[in-house]
């Protein structure tokens, strides 16, 4: 490996096909970062569509790889990092097969990366975060499919200290949004309405907030929101509109309350030096603000390490960064044996 290795990142685990080239030296240089978002298709269908997703991944990954490598071809990178789990095998294999072919033809190193480790690395892409980066760290990974508190003892050394027992936080946003008639994806819609509503208007539960564990439970919010919304559901006047805003604000606050409280308690217990907040739901402004405020007030010595907005949603720069962590530890995989790991835990 040269002094400033360039890692080719490939990500096809879920909605996005993404390809990136990351150069790691004294600073990080994101040489290429291509994401071919499939959100328009999903909006039309109201969710991720696996068969459509897999087929578009195939077409998109070929064109994105061609574009990323450019004239340099195989000389554009020194090693390959590809997401090998968790996710749907069919979608994962699209990226893995491309990566294997490139590894075979180029003779360069290849590592399989856990998508969640990629999310952790998304915070490391930010230069000011890297300056404050001192293990142990605590990471809150929050997305449509994940809600995990991860203790990071070192690069590549992690322990899940808490996670959801039912629905993920992003799922709670999406489904409560659906219950009050908002379109997909519900998270941003709830956030938008919430800014116009009163968060104390509807008394919603804060499940497991004080149970002493670092686990989460968000499925009960669906029942609470259904019951709260029932009297308003048939009305269409201005009062019902305001009730919808109030309910959105109450839902957002209920979810953020629990996320912040559990993160703070875990940060205290494990005596970490900083807190990462990563994954799709970390785009929620209220979550970012309230987490930052809680750290300032309660654990002021800790660094707040959110990922940049550009790297919150699925991207391949974060996969390349996590791949770099692995390669630096001496890890490499045999391209002949690399396969999808659909249920891979970090």
């Amino acid at each position, binding site marked *: 490996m040269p002094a400033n290795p360039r890692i080719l990142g490939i990500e096809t685990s879920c909605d996005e096909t993404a390809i990136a080239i990351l150069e790691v030296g004294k600073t990080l240089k994101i040489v290429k970062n291509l994401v071919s978002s499939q959100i328009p298709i999903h909006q039309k*269908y*109201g*969710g*991720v*569509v*696996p*068969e*459509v997703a*897999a087929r578009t991944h195939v077409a998109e990954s070929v064109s994105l790889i061609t574009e990323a490598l450019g004239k340099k071809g195989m000389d554009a990178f020194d090693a390959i990092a590809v997401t090998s789990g*968790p*996710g*749907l*095998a*069919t*979608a994962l294999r699209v990226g893995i097969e491309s990566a294997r072919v490139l590894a075979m033809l180029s003779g360069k190193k290849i590592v399989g990366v856990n998508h969640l480790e990629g999310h952790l690395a998304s915070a490391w892409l930010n230069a000011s975060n890297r300056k404050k980066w001192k293990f142990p760290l605590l990471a809150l990974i929050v997305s*449509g*499919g*994940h809600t995990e508190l991860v203790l990071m003892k070192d690069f590549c050394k992690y322990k899940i200290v808490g996670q*959801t*027992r*039912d*629905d*993920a936080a*992003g*799922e709670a946003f999406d*489904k409560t949004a*659906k*219950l009050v008639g908002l379109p997909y994806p519900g998270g941003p819609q709830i956030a938008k309405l919430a800014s116009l509503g009163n968060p104390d208007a509807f008394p919603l539960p804060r499940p497991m907030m004080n149970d002493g564990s670092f686990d989460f439970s968000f*499925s009960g919010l*669906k*029942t609470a*929101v*259904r*019951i709260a919304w*029932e009297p308003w559901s048939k009305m269409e006047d201005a009062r019902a509109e305001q009730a919808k805003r109030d309910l959105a604000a109450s839902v957002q606050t209920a979810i953020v309350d629990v996320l912040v409280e559990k993160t703070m308690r875990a940060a205290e217990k494990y005596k970490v030096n900083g807190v990462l907040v990563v994954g799709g739901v970390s785009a929620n402004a209220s979550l970012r603000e309230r987490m930052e405020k809680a750290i300032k007030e309660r654990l002021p010595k800790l660094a707040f390490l959110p990922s940049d907005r550009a790297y919150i949603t699925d991207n391949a720069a974060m996969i390349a960064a996590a791949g770099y962590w692995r390669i630096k530890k001496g890890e490499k995989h045999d391209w002949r044996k690399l396969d999808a790991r659909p*249920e891979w835990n970090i």
Partner: protein
Amino acid sequence: MNFIVARMEDWDLAAKAVADRLSPGSILALSGPLGAGKTTFVQALARALGSKDKPRSPTFSLVRAYKTAHSAIKQLVHVDAYRIESEQDILPLGLEEYLEDPATVMAIEWPEQISAWLAGQTHVIRMQIEPDKGSDVRRIRIA
């Protein structure tokens, strides 16, 4: 068979009764609105089948398999078709492959999303969970 679920423990009673009716290859089609308790029921079913795992919502992962410790049933496959809009989209989930295993049962949330596929299956047990208006109580109907 009908059940009324008023307390959380009632899910276990319903799940035990359903577990007794399952045999390898059974597909449980779990209908009911958002938050009705489909996943909660599958968690109780996993317990009833002696699994050590506690299923989470598979809405995003789409399918998850759990080992069970039952005399005839060794695996519970938990599927959620909530995000599946078109029948062809279930092909990549490999549901048929799971069902080829001689000791597997499958529980499917939002089965209406894949009704054509289900119509082609044998051993389907249909179950409906309805929440009572304005309360926590659920009514379960098993055809």
